[in-house]
């Protein structure tokens, strides 16, 4: 019988402003069983309690750089979900 080695993947998710209030936290870790994109991580977030208040395609930053929904995540990434900006 063959053994399948499953490599899991954990990313740090940061939430701000109204999104942090919606999910009642500013940060959480998400662990996946295999390769995953920003969009797939978002789907997981939106399934959490309060997560329905996140839009399907919010502004996201991956390790401080703006990211696309299709950007792949790697172990240890910092994924920030950004509400509409309101500086100035």
């Amino acid at each position, binding site marked *: 019988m063959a053994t399948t080695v499953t490599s899991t993947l954990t990313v740090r998710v940061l939430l701000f402003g109204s999104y942090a209030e919606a999910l009642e936290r500013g940060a959480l870790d998400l662990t996946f069983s295999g390769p995953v994109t920003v969009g797939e991580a978002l789907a997981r977030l939106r399934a959490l309690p309060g997560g329905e208040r996140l839009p399907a395609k919010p502004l996201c930053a991956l390790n401080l750089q703006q990211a696309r929904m299709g950007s792949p995540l790697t172990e240890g990434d910092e994924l920030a979900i950004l509400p509409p900006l*309101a500086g100035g």
Partner: protein
Amino acid sequence: MSFLTEDPIDLGCLLALVQSPARGGIASFLGIVRNHQSGRAVVGLDYSAYAPMAEAVSQEIVSEAESRWDVAVSLLHRIGKLSVGDTAVAVVAASAHRDDAFLACRYVIEQVKRRVPIWKKEYYADGSVMWVGSGEAREQARTADRI
């Protein structure tokens, strides 16, 4: 110099950072907490930021301005709780050419508003609270004057 501060913004300090005997023209912009937003009376604000990204993006914006025009730029954004009349953001651009000073100052404040990850929670006189820039606020903002 860091971009974010929790302390009151002192324009004199920002001026001192870029003023020099070779730069005869200094354009500045101050963004002040207003007493109204989308027709509602505002009593205060709470600014928060994704600090490391805000620092990186603001550095980028200043570098862009300084490479595009012959200017030295200083820039500060306050975070935390602010009252009406408090300075939320200040930009100073100093140059030997006043055209460059004005253009760079304008560029920086526009880009800060567009690109820097900062959020604003507004507290209104009627006791209500709103994240500005969220769906609801954007809806209202379409028909309202905004800084």
